[in-house]
């Protein structure tokens, strides 16, 4: 019950923060959607980092380390440190500069303008929304799992389950609903400024509490007075398979490098880039992002591998996936926080985990509302025919509809947080050639862009179907060379297909007109 009180208090604080940001609201759609380009280096760092670190980072990383061992860090964390900052440096600054100059609020506006083609927006809109929804689902599902695990035992008569780990806990459908409503409320009133403030606050919360959780769990599992001694005891107990990558395919690891390129095409990050006050505001996020990732991921991965050892008490047992005897890896971190820390600390740590989840959900909600209002309604009805007030209410209406759809989908049978994320990121990563070419390749044509997007979606759907719609979590595209079979991540095939289509079709179609090129790249 103590955890529940702390979680509720934290959520109320968050609401106040969102409402506080709304007091600075200037009443224009530019302010609501882009915080009037007023975000400085620190807020930009915290909001970019908070947005990219999702449930995938905290709940997914510890769960995946529990299943696969330490390799998960190299697969996603260290590669992201290099590649996310690369995207901020190579794409973010340039897109911010054009966005500032030409007044964009969304990615689609940029592509329409750069390619001088209206239809590209209609093609991109459903793809972007379709790929963001699984990303949203990761957060919504995880928040329900976390709240149920942490409140287990609080209401045994009201919410009984057959699983001792979750018996009496608030069911996921209620937990997820509450989180959706909270995020919806502060996005609704605070807009981008509220989102940036809440992100910064939540990022600080989950980073600090993550380190505290790591310390407390290590002390409890080790049982010795010295912290270092406990760390040694915990890691000593981990099996050889989990502290090495003996069971991991080297080519799969290599091709995972493409996944973080998804950041270049995330529509919510594009919107965050545009909020920057100046190009110099990007310097701090570019430099600090890799180390921030390390600070969050290393403790999570260690906790994940420690959970596989006999140091974790057998009672209560680790939560199982409903109706099976398989450990629910997504619940490993919340379970350890609950069983290995005090009720008060457990409550705060849960708030930290929820903070990481919500700091991504908010940006994604807001960006979908922005895309709908600016790229569909505003574009076709006519931006000048809509007042700012109308635009803001339309954005809010679409956000509410998307939240309702996502929440409905979260009630369907659960899939792995990590598995779902990888498919969603693979789609975005395979659109990376498009954004890179749009920024640096003058020869890119609208036909080349269409070919790239269509090839991406056809290849993605084909491979997703081959994987049993994501059911086969170990799905790889196997390439036999000289009697040896190399396992590769599906993203490699989709990415290459999309890039080849882009280049080939661009080269055989008429080059873009000189006027457009001069606008973006300067005169010859």
């Amino acid at each position: 019950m103590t955890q529940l009180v702390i979680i509720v208090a934290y959520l109320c604080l968050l609401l106040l923060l969102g409402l506080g940001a709304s007091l600075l609201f200037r009443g224009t759609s530019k302010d609501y959607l882009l915080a009037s380009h007023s975000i400085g280096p620190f807020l930009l760092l915290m909001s970019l980092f908070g947005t990219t670190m999702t449930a995938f980072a905290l709940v997914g990383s510890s769960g995946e380390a529990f299943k696969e061992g330490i390799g998960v860090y190299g697969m996603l964390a260290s590669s992201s440190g290099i590649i996310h900052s690369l995207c901020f440096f190579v794409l973010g600054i340039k897109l911010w500069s054009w966005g500032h100059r030409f007044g964009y609020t969304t990615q689609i506006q940029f592509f329409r303008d750069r390619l001088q083609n209206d239809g590209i927006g209609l093609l991109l809109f459903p793809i972007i929304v379709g790929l963001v929804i699984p990303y949203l689902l990761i957060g919504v599902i995880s928040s329900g799992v976390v709240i149920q695990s942490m409140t287990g035992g609080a209401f045994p008569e009201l919410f009984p389950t057959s699983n001792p780990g979750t018996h009496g806990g608030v069911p996921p459908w209620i937990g997820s609903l509450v989180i959706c409503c909270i995020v919806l409320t502060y996005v609704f009133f605070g807009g981008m400024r509220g989102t940036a403030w809440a992100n910064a606050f939540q990022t600080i919360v989950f980073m600090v509490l993550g380190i505290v959780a790591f310390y407390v769990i290590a002390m409890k599992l080790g049982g010795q007075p010295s912290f270092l001694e406990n760390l040694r005891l915990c890691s000593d107990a981990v099996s050889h398979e989990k502290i090495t990558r003996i069971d991991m395919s080297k080519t799969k690891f290599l091709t995972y490098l493409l996944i973080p390129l998804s950041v270049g095409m995330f529509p919510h990050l594009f919107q965050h880039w545009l909020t920057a006050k100046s190009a110099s505001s990007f310097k701090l996020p570019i430099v600090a992002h890799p180390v921030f990732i390390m600070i969050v991921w290393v403790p999570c991965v260690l906790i994940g591998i420690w959970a596989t050892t006999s140091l974790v008490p057998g009672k209560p047992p680790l939560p199982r996936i409903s109706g099976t005897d398989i450990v629910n890896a997504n619940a490993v971190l919340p379970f350890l926080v609950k069983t290995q820390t005090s009720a008060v600390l457990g409550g705060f740590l849960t708030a930290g985990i929820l903070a990481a989840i919500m700091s991504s959900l908010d940006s994604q909600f807001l960006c979908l509302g922005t895309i709908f209002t600016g790229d569909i309604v505003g574009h076709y009805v006519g931006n000048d025919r809509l007042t700012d007030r109308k635009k803001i209410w339309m954005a809010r209406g679409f956000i509410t509809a998307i939240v309702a759809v996502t929440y409905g989908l979260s009630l369907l049978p659960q899939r792995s947080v990590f598995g779902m994320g990888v498919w969603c990121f693979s789609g975005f990563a395979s659109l990376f050639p498009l954004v890179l070419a749009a920024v640096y390749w003058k020869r890119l044509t609208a036909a080349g862009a269409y070919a790239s997007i269509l090839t991406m979606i056809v290849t993605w759907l084909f491979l997703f179907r081959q994987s049993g719609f994501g059911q086969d979590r170990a799905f790889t595209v196997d390439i036999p060379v000289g009697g040896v079979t190399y396992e590769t991540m599906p993203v490699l095939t989709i990415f290459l297909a999309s890039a080849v289509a882009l280049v080939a079709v661009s080269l055989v179609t008429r080059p873009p007109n000189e006027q457009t090129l001069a606008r973006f790249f300067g005169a010859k």
Partner: protein
Amino acid sequence: MRYLIGIFLLLLLVLHQDNWFWEDDTLVFGFIPMGLFYHACISVAASVTWFLATKFAWPRALSDGEEASQQGANI
């Protein structure tokens, strides 16, 4: 300097594929598995490389344009 930073980045990407520590079960400082420690060092090296990039390879034309746009806003 830009080329040097480009080379550092390529080097980081190559070093990321650490086949040499794949099966190494050494615990650095007695508690961090070698594979995890090595990749944490890659994260730190990435930050250092990006620091150098912002110092020595920051787009010059963009900084000028940014100043111009801010002056314009002040007028």
